């Protein structure tokens, strides 16, 4: 958000994107998604799960924005809203179209969304559930091409083969069904599918979490290569902070449906301003069995916060080690604490929180 070139030079290589690097590709404003809680025979609504509750952030062309936060804080829901897999409860999702105009995807009908569904793609969190078990891989990866009449017949097969090769799968396997692949292999099928239509924005939801270290390294390198090659923009959801650190330019930290901190990656890791971010960074397991006892991990006390019934004031206050009286009464706004570094904590300026220092090598 610090530098925004309004007339940046044209960097795009393919016909599918005329936006320049540094332009805002996606501008999410006050996004809300509430799910009704129903009860009884008539499924009467008795409350709402405020899965995403008034979040705003921007994604620049060609950048990778990380989305992190506790399980259930609304990351997947936010991603699905951007894809318009859900109707919004509130807010706007401005997306830069081919003419460089910002279009609000929020109110678009299914039909009007069609051209954008090619441009905004998602790699799904659960590689087991998101692949149709009755479709062979060639159909899973090739269907978007067929539906959008991009390729057919032999050409389709060739494109699928090259996509599979791209993500490190053997093209010979394209007639197999998903169940015949391991978790990591299925994840790569999902990536190939998402990339089939040359998208402009890819929402990658835990795209590498099922992968082991050495394959993950290959996929992350691939994701970066594709970004350079096609000027791709990513929203990268992951709970693996070492992956986030490696791949993201900026990071958005969510807690119970709200954004609590946004900053450039390096800054966020070195100097967090929100106590939840500090706890998050401290929970990363140390890959050395001898450090088991020595780690000063902040174990979050108390219940997992419930988005149907969030605490008063600062949502983090029942679990915060720095809590003060004001915290349970007043909701902190997301404020700019340092240039380009935002946090939602009443005491962000006063607290000195621990970031991550380079860990030592194994002895």
């Amino acid at each position, binding site marked *: 958000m610090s530098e925004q070139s309004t007339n940046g030079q044209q960097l795009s290589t393919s016909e599918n994107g005329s936006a320049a690097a540094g332009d805002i590709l996606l501008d999410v404003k006050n996004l809300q998604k509430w799910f009704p809680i129903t*009860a009884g025979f008539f499924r009467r609504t008795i409350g709402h799960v405020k899965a995403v509750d008034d979040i705003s952030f921007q994604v620049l062309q060609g950048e990778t924005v990380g989305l992190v936060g506790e399980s259930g804080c609304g990351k997947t829901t936010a991603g699905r809203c951007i894809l318009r897999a859900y109707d919004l409860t509130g807010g706007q999702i401005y997306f830069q179209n081919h003419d460089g105009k910002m279009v609000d995807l929020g109110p678009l009908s299914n039909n009007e969304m069609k051209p954008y569904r090619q441009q905004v793609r998602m790699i799904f969190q*659960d590689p087991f559930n998101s692949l149709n078990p009755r479709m062979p891989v060639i159909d899973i990866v090739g269907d978007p091409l067929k539906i959008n009449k991009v390729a057919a017949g032999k050409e389709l097969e060739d494109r699928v083969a090259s996509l599979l090769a791209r993500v490190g799968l053997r093209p010979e396997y394209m007639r197999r069904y998903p169940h015949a692949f391991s978790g990591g292999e299925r994840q790569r099928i999902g990536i190939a599918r998402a990339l089939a239509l040359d998208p402009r924005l890819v929402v990658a939801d835990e795209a590498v979490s099922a*992968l*082991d*270290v050495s394959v993950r390294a290959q996929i992350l390198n691939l994701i970066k290569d594709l970004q350079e090659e096609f000027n791709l923009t990513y929203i990268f959801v992951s709970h693996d902070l070492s992956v986030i*650190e490696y791949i993201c330019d900026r990071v958005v930290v969510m807690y119970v449906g709200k954004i609590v901190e946004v900053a450039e990656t390096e800054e966020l890791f070195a100097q967090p301003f929100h106590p939840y971010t500090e706890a*998050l960074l401290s*929970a990363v397991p*140390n890959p050395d069995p001898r450090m088991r006892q020595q780690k000063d991990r902040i174990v979050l006390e108390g219940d997992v916060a419930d988005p149907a019934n969030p605490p008063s004031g600062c949502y983090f206050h029942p679990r915060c080690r720095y809590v003060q009286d004001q915290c349970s009464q007043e909701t902190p706004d997301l404020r700019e604490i340092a240039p380009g570094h935002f946090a939602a904590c009443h005491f962000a300026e006063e607290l000195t929180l621990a970031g991550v220092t380079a860990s030592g090598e194994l002895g």
Partner: protein
Amino acid sequence: METPVLIEIKNLKTHFFLDEGTVQAVNGVDFTIHQHKTLCVVGESGCGKSVTARSILQIVDQPGRIVEGEILYHRPDRLSTAGNGEWTSDEAGASGNSTTEIIDLAALDPRGREIRAIRGQDISMIFQEPMTSLSPIHTVGNQITEAIKLHTDMLDDEADEHAVELLRRVGIPRPEERLETYPFELSGGMRQRVMIAMALSCNPALLIADEPTTAVDVTTQAQILELLEELQDEFGMAIMLITHDLGVVAEMADDVVVMYLGQVAERGDVDSIFHDPKHPYTQSLLKSIPRLGVSRNRQRLDSIRGMVPDPYNRPTGCMFGPRCDHFMPGRCDAVNPPAIPLGPEREVHCLLYEDE
């Protein structure tokens, strides 16, 4: 401190018979799980971790089956007889073995009564894919109480109460209300907790957890791992934990098995594996761990060169040969390295150590 043996796997081979050929998913695996201990299984995607776990429960998908080997289950007394078979730390464990019932799980009929009695009650599993193992059309409550009623003589009300208690125990807020929700309404981490609650409903001797924390964030992961440790202390179960996160291994494991392409590369206690790894594969795995603060600003990540070979065209000799920096032509491509013992329950499958 050694505890009595719970599961002994000997030369396990589980193959899939497909039209294109045979996938030797698990191809001669040996390891031991001790009572009350945590064994972690690590290895490249597709190396056979899940299939090994599924073999223990005899739930290998068609067209796969166990073709060779033994899975000896030393059934703790509390599960085989009515007696008080609490785990004890003294030597009696060994002598007590004479009365312990030993069952070869590999020899049981996958659809037979015996293995069905063991599943869920003696050995339960948290699956890698929580959504496919939770039924989408039944409520969370129904699924947990069904699991409870299947293996105990609890009645509906009791089972309901027990289910609420279990959900509370695994940290789910408003557990009474959650009984009425469907799995799709839960976040990934919540589903994983529900899976753990179900798996624990019958107080098993062994809990197999296949990537139990890949779907959750680190703070929740820390809680789930802590929960597993607490439950292990409380109930004394052994845990077989499959994960690709070496940080998790470093925090949880007593013993570690490193697998590569259906075989064991190396196994031993956790400290030896991290601080004195012998197999070239283990060594490169440890080097490719992303470390916070270290990978920052790096242009590319280290990865092991090459790819896992096609399961139909396995290398001759050592499975790791084509990717190994210590490859010895004429030897490594000629002999599939046997287990070379380095100490008690510490062994490596690599020809570099043949003469030691």
